[in-house]
């Protein structure tokens, strides 16, 4: 199969509430950004693919307006997934592998601020058995965290350590909402929000957009000096019923990691899409990452979590760090659904 490389990536600075700035304006910023950075034009892309969620905008077909950010006239080859932009990237990679496209523009966006995100996410559970209970996204994660604590899988101090590292790492990234120096003791002194989760165990609510350019290795070399190779990418889903799963493990992440070829490379760092602190620990174990692997050097989703873009952001940050010369090989991960139901793993490496 044909290799695919990441050429460029950009995100808006995620904010809790972008106010009058709408999705289209945020998208224009990042799409123009990657295009200008790369020195190409819109018509140079053979394929465009995006990820978003109508429910965040509160309207059916909200994604249609996203396409306007690309200004597709004359017509383009384009597709959309109602998923995180990481899966739009996956579709674009398939397209390049077919040989029908040599390059693609990928984007993801979400403006969660107008709604009450916790409750909106209740609607993605089983509509007959779970949604009517209004089990919201933080409560579902709290049940998972409680199971992890009760089974001795991890401790509250482990979770606080994840948060402290995330906030400290985020200091080096301009586009992070939450950053700073915090001690584990300080964090553990905070009250719980939805027991056992404290507010800092949960990802912030973020408005933003992200864009990425991917291409065949030949095209990528033409377009940039340091393309990042996608050595492998795979995604897997598990049961929608939290009660049918062992929530203290992330089986689908393990399968995806193996299928993406994580065993065959020297992983130096991992960008893990863990919207809750305990989930980063589960993901680290699922991917069998040892202590030598730097986790979420960008701060991860706990520093900024734009719905429908945060997974793509993990891949984007990982690629940017390799391009900056900080690492040569790493893993990026995206998640979707309650309690890590669906997971995508990509193995990235600097081009030789």
């Amino acid at each position, binding site marked *: 199969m044909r290799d695919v490389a990441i050429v460029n990536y950009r995100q808006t600075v995620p904010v809790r509430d972008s106010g009058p700035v709408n999705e289209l304006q945020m998208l224009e910023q990042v799409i123009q950004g990657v295009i200008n950075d790369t020195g190409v034009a819109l018509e140079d892309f053979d394929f465009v693919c995006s990820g978003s969620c109508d429910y965040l905008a509160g309207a059916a077909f909200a994604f249609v307006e996203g396409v306007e950010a690309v200004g597709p006239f004359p017509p383009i080859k384009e*597709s959309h997934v109602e998923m995180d932009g990481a899966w739009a990237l996956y579709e674009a990679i398939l*397209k390049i592998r077919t040989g029908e496209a040599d390059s693609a523009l990928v984007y993801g966006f979400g403006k969660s601020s107008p709604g009450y995100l916790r409750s909106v996410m209740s*609607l993605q559970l089983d509509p007959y058995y779970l949604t009517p209970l209004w089990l919201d996204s933080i409560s579902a994660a709290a049940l998972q965290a409680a199971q992890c604590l009760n089974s001795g899988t991890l401790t509250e101090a482990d979770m606080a350590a994840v948060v402290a590292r995330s906030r400290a790492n985020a200091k080096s990234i301009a586009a992070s909402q939450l950053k700073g120096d915090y001690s584990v003791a300080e964090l553990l002194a905070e009250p719980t929000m939805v027991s056992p989760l404290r507010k800092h165990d949960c990802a912030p609510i973020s408005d933003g957009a992200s864009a990425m350019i991917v291409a065949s290795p030949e095209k990528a070399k033409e377009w940039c000096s340091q393309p990042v190779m996608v050595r492998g990418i795979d995604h897997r889903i598990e049961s929608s019923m939290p009660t049918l799963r062992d929530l203290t493990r992330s089986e689908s992440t393990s399968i995806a990691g193996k299928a993406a070829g994580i065993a065959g490379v020297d992983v130096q760092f991992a960008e893990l899409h863990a919207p809750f602190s305990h989930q980063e620990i589960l993901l680290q174990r699922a991917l069998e990452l040892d202590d030598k692997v730097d986790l979420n050097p960008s701060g991860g989703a706990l520093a900024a979590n734009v719905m429908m873009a945060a997974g793509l952001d993990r891949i984007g940050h990982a690629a940017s760090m390799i391009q900056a010369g900080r690492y040569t090989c790493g893993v990026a991960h995206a998640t979707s659904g309650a309690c890590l139901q669906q997971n995508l793993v990509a193995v990235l490496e600097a081009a030789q």
Partner: protein
Amino acid sequence: MSRLAAVTGIGQTQYKSARKDVSMAGLVHEAAERAIQDAGIGWDDIDAVIIGKAPDMFEGVLMPELYLADALGACGKPMMRVHTAGSVGGSTAVVAASHVTSGSFDRILTVTFEKQSESNAMWALSIPRPFSMHLNAGAGGHFAPHIREYIRRSGAPAHAGPMVAVKDRKNALKNPLAHLQIPDISLEMVMESPMLWDPVRFLESCPSSDGACALVISNEKLASEGPNKPAWIRGMAMRSETMTCKGRDEVNPLAGSDCAKDVYAQAGIKDPRREVDMAEVYVPFSWYEPMWLENLGFADEGQGWKLTESGETEIGGSIPFNCSGGVLSSNPIGASGMIRFAEAARQVRGTAGEHQVDGAKMAIGHAYGASAQFFAMWAVSSEKP
């Protein structure tokens, strides 16, 4: 396309206004189970599941693929959700097929559905958003001005649209899965039905349906070895264009004709009117048959209605359109595009039953969405290239 792929299994549910006997999971499972049986395989033989549907608000479930993973045997497998407006059924088939043509997967299951009875599509389409063009009266209200402009430009007679409505509903009588079964359908009945959005009358509009459609798509080796005749995918394409801008023609969109030309080039079709044996084309309102006859290159601009009027689009005509009854007879929105793709595949496999076009070798499946700005198409053939 770099690698060959073929449809090796097709499954459809009964289409009707409310499938109260099944949940959403039961509905998609029904179609998927039938496709897997038709392919002569088991659930374990599926490498990935690709699901598509129209807006989540049509059922009130956010990203329903998460909840449907169990019903589609996807646990432990890759599962992807496509959403490209009304064209989604077709786009999903194209994205699903690219899983195989990219060489990444050997055999996949793709499913699309809508359970319109769970909600109200017209309401879901009419939620106003600040600073956005308001779609006040659902799809029909949006498309009526495009249709009026088509009639003005082409000088088509008032009965051309109603003739499509009669023809498609007569075809539906030969398709036991079709939602609308109107045995005494006639031109008079259609033309006397209430005016909804001038010039679109009640009987010229698609129904609201519950239903699901599924396909198994396999690589060349598996398709050649399978128990049933495959429908070889000879060309497929998607195109999108902006909703409003200077120079865009909503009546005869460039994205639609570009998409068709791309598919014909891949399939080696030079004269679609002669080389295509039948087409399943997305016609949710009667007048879209003559409009798409022109947009897809079956007739010159302004001449499409003449093919309809002279009966060329009937079964037995030179270019039969929508032998299954089309979107005018069954419309589970998210699945409507894939039903077109599936019905085209049935025709070239020779398994379309009573609505079979004799000896169909090359067939087209087509879908469009949003403000006639998203298009997906494929050409399938009984012949391997």
